[in-house]
């Protein structure tokens, strides 16, 4: 699987640059794993695995397609097996499991994390709750350190750990019963996540009125769900999509919306202020919702929120509740840097630096409301929820 990952990355870059990788391989995989214990290399310094996955989801060639193509090309190459089924070949690696799950484009990152932890429980041979918790903690720490930039990953892990701790405190008489319950709930979490999206769509589409113009930044599956539901409820509205460089999220979103029959207009990122006059509301998703009530989202969200705020337009964020994280960034640099590869299409001269950060932090005073599966919340509710959970 390691080879596929490296090759995938090169192929995608190759595809995007239109053939010529003009820059030296700045991101050649640096670490080669020494032992079987860590079959997955750490993601490259400087490239956030989280945003890498997102790019892979957005790319026209998907990782799965590529791997199948390569498997077909190299005949005799064993087909890729989900690591969970491999019983004796290699010891269970939660990171493998996680990688297997997060490749699916429809699955949220936190869900993938929880699936991986559940698989960890399943394959563990602990006999008491305490042992199980310790194993889980180790697995969760491994996941978190594998990708330090993904907020929903760590939020999902924390949430599940919290749930395990609380469930074990409820005096299950039988350890195996408790274990089964944990596994069952964890696996149901995928459904919960889908249900969450539907709840958010129901709540959010209430705010869309006939004849309104919505500005959307970034490609969020939750936002897409909201718009889909509003369209199916025969609401008449139009959407402005920002282009979303370098991920081309706007192109992907506009394609989806066009198939739904919603009138879409594409803007370059710099045209947001120009178009903000005609806009009635801004709707974005979130990579993570922090304790202050602000959100961390794709680069450009802060800008859009600032412009909207200065023109008195409401900014709505659609985020599932498991994205609430115990972070409190005080400024943009307070976050773990998540870097993306940015292609300019032309060779960049040597001494020129590039701002490669993939995300920014939008403070809560620029947000109007958060649509979550816990209901429609004002930003101040987030810390309340987190306190209830963690303290």
């Amino acid at each position, binding site marked *: 699987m390691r080879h596929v990952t490296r090759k995938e990355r090169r192929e995608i870059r190759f595809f995007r640059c239109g053939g010529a990788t003009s820059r030296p391989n700045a991101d050649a995989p640096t670490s080669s794993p020494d032992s079987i214990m860590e079959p997955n290399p750490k993601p490259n310094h400087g490239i956030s695995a989280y945003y890498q996955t997102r790019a892979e989801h957005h790319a026209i060639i998907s990782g799965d397609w590529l791997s199948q193509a390569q498997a077909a090309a190299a005949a005799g190459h064993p087909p890729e097996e989900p690591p969970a089924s491999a019983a004796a070949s290699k010891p269970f690696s939660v990171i493998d499991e996680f990688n297997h799950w997060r490749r699916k484009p429809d699955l949220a990152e936190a869900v993938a994390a929880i699936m991986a932890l559940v698989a960890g429980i399943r394959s563990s041979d602990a006999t008491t709750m305490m042992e199980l918790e310790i194993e889980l903690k180790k697995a969760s720490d491994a996941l978190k350190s594998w990708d330090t930039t993904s907020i929903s990953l760590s939020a999902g892990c924390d949430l599940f750990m919290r749930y395990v701790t609380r469930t074990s405190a409820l005096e299950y008489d*039988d350890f195996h019963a408790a274990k089964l319950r944990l596994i069952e709930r964890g696996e149901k979490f995928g459904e919960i996540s889908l249900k969450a999206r539907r709840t958010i769509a129901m709540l959010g589409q209430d705010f869309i009125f006939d004849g309104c113009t919505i500005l959307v930044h970034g490609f969020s599956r939750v936002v897409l769900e909201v718009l889909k539901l509003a369209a199916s409820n025969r609401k008449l509205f139009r959407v402005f999509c920002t282009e979303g460089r370098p991920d081309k999220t706007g192109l992907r979103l506009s394609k989806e919306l066009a198939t739904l029959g919603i009138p879409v207009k594409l803007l370059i990122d710099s045209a947001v202020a120009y178009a903000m006059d005609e806009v009635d509301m801004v709707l974005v998703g979130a990579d993570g919702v922090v304790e202050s009530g602000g959100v961390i989202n794709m680069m450009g969200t802060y800008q859009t929120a600032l412009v909207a705020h200065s023109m008195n337009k409401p900014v709505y964020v659609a985020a599932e509740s498991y994205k609430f994280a115990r972070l409190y960034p005080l400024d943009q640099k307070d976050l773990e840097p998540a870097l993306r590869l940015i292609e300019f299409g032309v060779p960049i001269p040597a001494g020129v630096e590039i701002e490669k950060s993939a995300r920014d932090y939008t403070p809560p005073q620029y947000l109007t409301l958060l649509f979550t599966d816990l209901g429609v919340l004002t930003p101040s509710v987030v810390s309340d*929820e987190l306190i209830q959970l963690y303290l």
Partner: protein
Amino acid sequence: MPDLQALVTDFVLKLKRRKIEGSQATAKQTAELLRQVVSQQRMPYTNQASVLIDAVRAVGEQLIAANPIGELSNSYLFLAVGNIVRRVLHIIREENLSSTTAAMEGLGLTAGSDDDEGEHEDRPGLSAAAVAAAARSTLRAPSLQTLLEDIPESAVAPHPSSSGGDSEGKSKSADRGSRSKKLKHDVIEAINELIQDIDTCHELISEQAVEHIHQNEVILTLGRSRTVKEFLCAAKEKKRTFRVFVAEGAPRYQGHVLAKELVGKGIQTTVITDSAVFAMISRVNMVIVGAHAIMANGGVIAPVGINMVALAAQRHAVPFVVVAGSHKLCPLYPHNPEVLLNEFRCPSDLLDFGEFSDCMDYGSLGGSPLLHVVNPAFDYVQPKLVSLFITDTGGHNPSYVYRLIADYYSADDLVVQQNST
């Protein structure tokens, strides 16, 4: 129940004909009506809470549906009606839950639930504490804590342990029989408490007046709100010296009435026009106004003109305080059509038809006169303009309103009307 139906229709007619003045009276009468509904409801052996909830919901739908959206000029009273209906529904759910958990813990068995039709979960070895905790979690608004829990439709109902057999069954049903009386009784008691709260809301709010009004202050208000009047009078009784600027609140000029009342209590008062608010606001220490309703995001539905005062206060950094009883707290958001559309009152308040009859003549100019007179009744004030809400439970930030709503209302009750379209 024909008797009940008559009561309901009677109440609706009274509302429509504006026989009921003000949201406090409306809220109280709604609560009394719902108390009647609950006490007259025949209770089955099982599934009691849902029966009560359905009955109250049915009446609530009738009451709310009586206000075609935006048509009546006292639609804010219907907001109060909706609030009380939702409060009662929440009370029923809470009382049901506390009686269920008490029963379960009392029994000490892994059995016992109110709703046999709910999803049955076979959970061997689950202790009563766990079941109670799960049941408790179904009542609370969904939260991060309960995200991973199973959330069945009603309280968790594990199968009784197989060794129980008949004796357990009998004891359960006997227990339920006594519990049924208790639930109704508890609900009616709680509704009585609610009525009590509504009655005393003005006293509770006025008690806090001393903390907010200090010596030699200048206070601005607009129009006439009974809560504000009692607030100011209470401060006066506690020997605070202060002055009040009353903006008259055109076109109804209720500010004149308030000024007279304040003078009667010995408070130094100045009457100004609405247009003079911006001119005078810099000399004012604090603005205190009443509201028709407080929305879930902290926004305020208030008589027309108050938004202007709020903006003036923000411009000059003057604290803008809203006093309102907690029965005015509405779990809806301003985008909701029940709330959104403004009322338009009679234009004759503004212009005398006699003088302007030729401009407003629909006959002569082919159906569409050049002069229109618009008399909106309400204003919406954004939450960021409000500094403080003073309710009978104390002083709160606008960003705290969600917490009050979570305390008083259940998420399931937000949509009382069935979607009949």
